[in-house]
């Protein structure tokens, strides 16, 4: 990689560890507002627990609204982290190396955020543990045939495995930080987290194999998790939900939205921490190509949904899709189409893929478009089902929007803490990209 020719092993350590220096004013200027918004989200949640779900805007027939939209959105965001860290690792795509740590962190924090919503959405959130597979007082077990229970298994497995994958990938880098820091408390913390890593060939041997197996597990896992999330809908009988394309459609959408979020996050980080030598235009070019691919799949899914609704001859199915494009929520539908299908189209041009500013703007639109995609799928099918007498309109309340804003703040709070405590770029893997020092070549 010619753009990395000025890098040396020592500079990689310097640059990455320098990011962990004492937080600056700018960091606090970002962190304190996120705390305030998290606090506001918490206030909204307490208000909802105190007053009941009525404040959440749920009205007949729509009882899955913004919270489930947020849940699917955040699970989706999580997916490209695993795509970049695991799937691209198996394919030996080198462009992943400088961004995968940030993407993995994003995965873990996004799953942590997503996991809150099924609980927030409960009428009695203090009973959330009823989801866990244990027999109740009548020795009755949970219903393993329910997609909602599959979700519990899928999301908790995903959180566990992605957190382990994230941590294991960091062990050698934490050891490098441990060797550099001088303050005693930090040294102790990093020493414990590094698990005594010393970089011997014996350690690398087992580490490399274990990492490969983790990647091999994470790959089918990531595909399964969003498939399971899609089956929350597809297993039911509602027009617009009951369709076989949902699993691949959701997986492609998840990767698409996650890539958008990776770009949204890395562009400012690259600028603030001067990581231009690490996160190169080639990295963005690679991600933009994946966006083109997944945007194409998502666009195809939008089209084929309409075709199948028409071809099925089912008045309810066709009515649902006609309603999506022309009904009360048509604006949301067309926002989704424009953001997810039309706005990424210029990325077919190389000059645009390598223009960071345009890429950043496109990524913001992708985030918006994908949130609306989930909203359209969930709310529109519910509000316009089989029986015209049971149709109804749902409007999100300020409580739901407050919790949604709080969830973004919650995600960014973790992310900001991560930037200042753990290595955001993989030190060991960046070194693998550099030419190996050889005496023979030098003399």
């Amino acid at each position, binding site marked *: 990689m010619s753009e990395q020719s000025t890098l040396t092993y020592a500079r990689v350590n310097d640059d990455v560890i320098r990011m962990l220096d004492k937080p600056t004013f700018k960091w606090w200027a970002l962190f304190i507002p996120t705390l305030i918004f998290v606090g506001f989200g918490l206030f909204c949640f307490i208000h909802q627990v105190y007053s009941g779900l009525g404040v959440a805007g749920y009205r007949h027939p729509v009882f899955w609204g913004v919270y489930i939209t947020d849940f699917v959105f955040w699970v989706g965001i999580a997916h490209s982290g695993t795509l970049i860290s695991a799937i691209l690792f198996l394919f030996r795509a080198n462009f992943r190396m400088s961004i995968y740590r940030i993407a993995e962190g994003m995965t873990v924090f996004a799953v942590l955020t997503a996991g809150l919503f099924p609980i927030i959405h409960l009428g009695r959130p203090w009973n959330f543990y009823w989801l866990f597979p244990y027999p109740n007082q009548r*020795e009755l077990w949970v219903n*393993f045939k329910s997609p909602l229970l599959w979700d519990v*298994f899928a999301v908790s497995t995903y959180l566990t495995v992605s957190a382990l994958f994230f941590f294991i990938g960091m062990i050698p880098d934490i050891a490098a930080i*441990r060797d550099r820091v001088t303050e005693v408390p930090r040294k102790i913390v990093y020493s414990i987290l590094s698990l005594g890593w*010393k970089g*011997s060939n014996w350690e690398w041997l087992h*580490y490399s194999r*274990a990492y490969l197996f983790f990647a091999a597990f994470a790959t089918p896992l990531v595909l*399964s998790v969003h498939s399971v999330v899609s089956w929350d809908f597809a297993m039911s009988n509602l027009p617009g939900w009951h369709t076989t394309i949902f699993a691949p459609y959701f997986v492609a959408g998840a990767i698409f939205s996650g890539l958008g979020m990776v770009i949204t996050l890395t562009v400012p980080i690259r600028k603030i921490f001067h990581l231009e030598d690490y996160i190169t235009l080639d990295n963005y070019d690679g991600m933009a190509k994946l966006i083109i691919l997944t945007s194409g799949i998502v666009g195809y899914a939008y089209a084929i949904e309409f075709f199948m609704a028409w071809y099925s001859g089912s008045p309810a199915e066709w009515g649902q899709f006609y309603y999506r494009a022309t009904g009360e929520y048509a604006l949301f539908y067309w926002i989704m189409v424009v953001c997810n299908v039309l706005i990424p189209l210029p990325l077919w041009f190389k000059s645009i893929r390598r223009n960071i500013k345009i890429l950043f703007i496109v990524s913001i639109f992708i985030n918006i478009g994908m949130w609306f995609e989930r909203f359209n799928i969930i709310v529109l099918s519910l509000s316009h089902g089989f029986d015209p007498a049971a149709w109804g309109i749902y409007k999100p309340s300020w409580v739901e929007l407050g919790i949604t804003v709080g969830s973004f703040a919650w995600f960014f709070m973790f992310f900001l803490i991560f930037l200042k405590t753990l290595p955001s770029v993989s030190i060991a893997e960046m070194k693998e990209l550099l030419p190996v020092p050889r005496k023979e070549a030098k003399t």
Partner: protein
Amino acid sequence: MSDKQGVLGIFSYLDVTIETVKKLRDSGFNNLRVFSPFPNHEIEEVMDEPESIVRFFTLGGAMLGAACGVAFTVLTSMDWPISVSAKPIVSLPPFMVIIFELTILMGALATLLGLLINSRLRRDTPRSMYDTRLSEDKFGVMITCSKDGVKDVEEILTSQGAEDIKFDGV
């Protein structure tokens, strides 16, 4: 007090490090460890360690997870059979999701266990024989030998151009 002695030579170049390993082997010193700041295939080749057994942990964990998934779903469903819409009590298609997730979960946890047990983190190398430069830009060769062999080892390391040599009782 052990009669073994550890010697650590520090190098800047990978090819010199590998050459040193070969020389030490030829001189009869086989208890070697190489340190590097990143994984490297050349080091793996020259050290010629047996294939990592982490894979057996992974396989065992995954198989155990699958078995637990089957047992968990089937046995609990049969424990209190409730017929819903005349669907079978033991219905494998929906159970496959649970079985799959448990396979992955236990496989991953077993892989972590395999890594922690086999890589001998913490106990493979004495702390005094570690050098912080090894996590930055240097390569290290650690030799564990009898006290009589230390002089020969030192000579080989010096002749190969080691930048620094450390000694310790092992």
